[in-house]
């Protein structure tokens, strides 16, 4: 496994963490105050920071760090996660995602935006609680900020103890590059956060031994009396003198991942035997063990000291920021109840994290596809076997028959389970949408809530991948055009905050995705006028409300008065419709003026199989995709009308529709068949027009596994793909759009057959 592979895994994990982060923030936004949620958010950012640090992605690390610091304020209940705070955080999550993808694929990030957010985040951390900000900046020697760690740790009953250890500024003038082993004096005082983030002072110290010869003094002065001790507090500090040939930088790099969470001071000692305040003791872990043992004992007392601690925090705050006094006082109550809960949750976290790992595996998609293909073969083979047994067995009661039935059931189950491997919840796509809503709403100055439902509805991965683009278009449209401005909404007596609801659910073997907005609905008069202006419909056309609504799916249509960055170039909804249709789906709209619009998309659960109608044309078996068929009918001689030289129209409920002989178009027969002897399939094609396709007979309806023709042959005009039927024969799947296009006038048809002749000539 080389570095790139490891990096790739890191990025994959980043995506998961980002999803976790966003869903956590959204939960908080909805009023969830579960400490576990806050912890999950914090963990996500922290993991990204940690991984990014390992790969030297400095931009990512520094942004994640600032974000983490602010989140930590929320986690320790110093910062109330209000809507405004969360807005900044959600934006930060977006920037973090951008930074991750920029690190992965290269490319730039909006520097201004991320810098602005860094400031906002820092302001949040500092503004609400000034001590929080001190954690980032390299600590100045001034004694004033010393209460910072005290505020972070509830156990600060004796803040004066903190001043017992102060990094004294030394002059760095004599710091020269020397090759002779020099002695550095390192003072290392971990803060409470260091332990909270899973770092361990002993391990850091052990790493330090690799830099050079060293002696360690542990300063236990700040350790409070047993009954006043906070089990999660940090009390020890170390004074280490390291004799090394390496520079200060190497010593600092040992603390690289901890430097934000500890007070670290590295300086060159003038002489080796400078008076040390304490006697060197051997580096021993037992001191730490004792500490943790006593922590447990102290846990019982912890609750009783909470009140005192909270007071101390409030006191510390007042001292540093008088203006925040009132706020701090109001928070005191909250802290008392929440601090204990947070401590319990933190312990539970570790257990949860261990449990959740190992429940999923990453599998290459190709492997899954190969398995799906093989199972497809198995199903076909099983059908063939059954058929030949039935043909040869007249009694139909033999044990072979019964065995075959069981086999059939098993293969069905195998197929379903294998298909389920590819099925993925739509959650990631929905989550991406919430970002789009946020950004677009910001851009157009609207306040919009996205509500998602049924995020865990599963659908084939290919469908999910292809769903994002049309959905993005529709969401943008809904935010830009659907929802009115807050002023208009208020005037109409609605909640100024608009709601866009995205729902996914399973309906009869398909996935149905609904996008509902509570905006103004479609302005039918305007849509109609626009369609007339753009020559999409005749001026005197008599259209039903539904037909008018569906006009927005016509190519080249936009009702927005002004073209905006977001939507309104007239390439919107027709593109959406086309991409949904390409997925074998349908889209419809219903709208109520003043109340909003609903877009309903219905998509197949997988692209590997297709619902088709099996038909016979000139002795050949063909499959017509069911999604294209509007209705089937048996033409009567009286409804067939000749039109021109060799065109025929069929009248269906008083409208005339061109009749297309599939057998003739595909060159299966030389002359047109008699329509009365066959069946007409009324189809709707991409262009919107209806055509009646003539076939000889309908065999039935069934699900077929799609097989590529291009793999071993070449593209065949009029044919979309192939499939294998139960009898083991290959059947061709009709490309309805191509057939309809070819039938549009004789010239087009000749051109297409000419083209295929040419390709044959090339092949020959």
């Amino acid at each position: 496994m080389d570095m790139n592979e490891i990096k790739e895994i890191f990025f994959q994990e980043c995506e998961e963490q980002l999803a976790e982060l966003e869903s956590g923030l959204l939960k908080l936004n909805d009023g969830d105050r579960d400490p576990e949620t806050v912890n999950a958010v914090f963990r996500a950012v922290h993991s990204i920071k940690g991984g990014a640090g390992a790969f030297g992605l400095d931009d990512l690390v520094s942004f994640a760090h600032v974000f983490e610091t602010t989140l930590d304020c929320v986690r320790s209940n110093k910062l109330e996660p209000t809507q405004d705070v969360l807005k900044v955080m959600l934006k930060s999550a977006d920037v973090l995602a951008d930074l991750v993808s920029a690190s992965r694929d290269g490319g730039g990030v909006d520097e201004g935006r991320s810098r602005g957010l860094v400031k906002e985040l820092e302001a949040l951390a500092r503004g609400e609680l000034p001590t929080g900000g001190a954690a980032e900046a390299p600590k100045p020697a001034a004694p004033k900020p010393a209460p910072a760690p005290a505020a972070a740790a509830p156990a600060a009953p004796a803040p004066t103890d903190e001043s017992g250890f102060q990094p004294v500024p030394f002059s760095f003038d004599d710091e020269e590059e020397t090759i002779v082993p020099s002695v550095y004096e390192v003072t290392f005082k971990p803060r409470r956060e260091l332990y909270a983030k899973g770092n361990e002072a002993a391990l850091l110290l052990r790493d330090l031994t690799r830099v050079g010869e060293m002696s360690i003094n542990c300063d236990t002065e700040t350790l409070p009396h047993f009954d006043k001790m906070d089990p999660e507090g940090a009390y020890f500090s170390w004074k280490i003198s390291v004799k090394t040939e390496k520079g200060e930088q190497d010593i600092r790099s040992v603390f690289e991942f901890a430097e934000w969470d500890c007070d670290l001071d590295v300086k060159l000692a003038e002489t080796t035997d400078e008076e040390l305040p304490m006697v060197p003791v051997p580096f021993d872990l037992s001191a730490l063990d004792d500490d943790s043992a006593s922590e447990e004992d102290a846990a019982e007392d912890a609750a009783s000291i909470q009140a005192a601690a909270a007071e101390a925090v409030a006191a510390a705050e007042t001292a540093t920021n008088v203006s925040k006094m009132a706020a701090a006082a109001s928070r005191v109550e909250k802290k008392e109840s929440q601090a204990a809960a947070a401590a319990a949750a933190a312990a539970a976290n570790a257990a949860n994290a261990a449990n959740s790992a190992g429940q999923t595996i990453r599998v290459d998609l190709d492997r899954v596809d190969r398995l799906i293909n093989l199972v497809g073969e198995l199903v076909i083979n099983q059908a063939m076997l059954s058929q030949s047994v039935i043909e040869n067995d007249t009694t139909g009661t033999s044990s072979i028959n019964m065995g075959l039935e069981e086999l059939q059931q098993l293969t069905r189950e195998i197929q379903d389970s294998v298909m389920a491997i590819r099925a993925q919840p739509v959650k990631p796509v929905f989550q991406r949408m919430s970002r789009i809503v946020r950004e677009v709403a910001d851009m157009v100055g609207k306040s919009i809530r996205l509500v998602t439902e049924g995020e865990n509805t599963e659908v084939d991965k290919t469908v999910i991948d292809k769903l994002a683009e049309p959905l993005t278009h529709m969401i943008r449209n809904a935010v830009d055009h659907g929802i009115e401005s807050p002023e208009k909404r208020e005037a109409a007596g609605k909640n100024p905050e608009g709601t866009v609801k995205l729902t996914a659910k399973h309906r009869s073997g398909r996935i149905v995705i609904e996008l509902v907005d509570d905006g103004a609905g479609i302005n039918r008069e305007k849509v109609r006028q626009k369609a007339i202006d753009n020559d999409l419909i005749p001026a005197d056309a008599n259209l039903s409300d539904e037909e008018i609504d569906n006009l927005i799916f016509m190519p080249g249509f936009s009702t927005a008065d002004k073209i905006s960055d977001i939507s309104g170039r007239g390439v919107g909804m027709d593109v959406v419709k086309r991409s949904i249709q390409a997925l074998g789906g349908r889209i419809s709209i219903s709208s109520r003026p003043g109340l909003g619009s609903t877009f309903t998309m219905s998509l197949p659960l997988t692209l590997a199989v297709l619902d088709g109608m099996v038909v016979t044309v000139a002795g050949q078996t063909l499959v017509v995709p069911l999604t294209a068929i509007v209705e089937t009918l048996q033409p009567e001689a009286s409804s067939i009308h000749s039109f021109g030289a060799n065109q025929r129209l069929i009248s269906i409920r008083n409208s005339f529709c061109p009749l297309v002989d599939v057998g003739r178009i595909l060159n299966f027969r030389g002359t047109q068949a008699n329509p009365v002897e066959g069946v007409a399939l009324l189809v709707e094609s991409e262009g919107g027009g209806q055509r009646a396709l003539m076939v000889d007979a309908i065999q039935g309806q069934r699900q077929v596994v799609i097989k590529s023709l291009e793999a071993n042959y070449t593209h065949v005009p009029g044919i979309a793909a192939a499939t294998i039927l139960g009898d083991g024969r290959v059947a061709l799947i009709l490309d309805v759009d191509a057939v309809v296009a070819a039938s549009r006038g004789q010239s087009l048809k000749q051109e297409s057959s000419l083209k295929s002749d040419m390709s044959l000539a090339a092949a020959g």
Partner: protein
Amino acid sequence: MSYAVKNLAQGSRELIAFRIGDQEFCVNIMSVREIRGWTKATGLPHSPSYVMGVINLRGAVLPIVDLSARLGMRRAEPTPRHVIIVAQVKNRVVGLLVEAVSDILTVTDENIQPVPEVSSELERQYARGILAIDKRMICLIELDTLFPDTDSEAA
């Protein structure tokens, strides 16, 4: 395996010989995947006359080429006695319809005689050499020349 290795070491190769009408042809055995009996193919619209259609080869859609027609001879009328040689041509797999597979030949380069000067473009295009074995004449075919690249076809 050791047999093949020995032969390869001596610079010889193995060929599969088959019969179309009264002529015999052969192709390099390395391009042949399998040999199977004739099954009815599903016709393709707008296909060249020598493409008989497609069949199901364990789930893959396999185009069947009437080699007789492809080589400019009479179109085959397939019977159950006909054979399909499944061959790999570049990155594709095609089925070649022939009358019967007659032999597996092990030949060295000295056994292969050059193609005599003939006027027909088609024969010169696919024939790579002629073998004389037991008074029979067997024509060595280069399959790659019979089925050009996808890209040129698509153009």
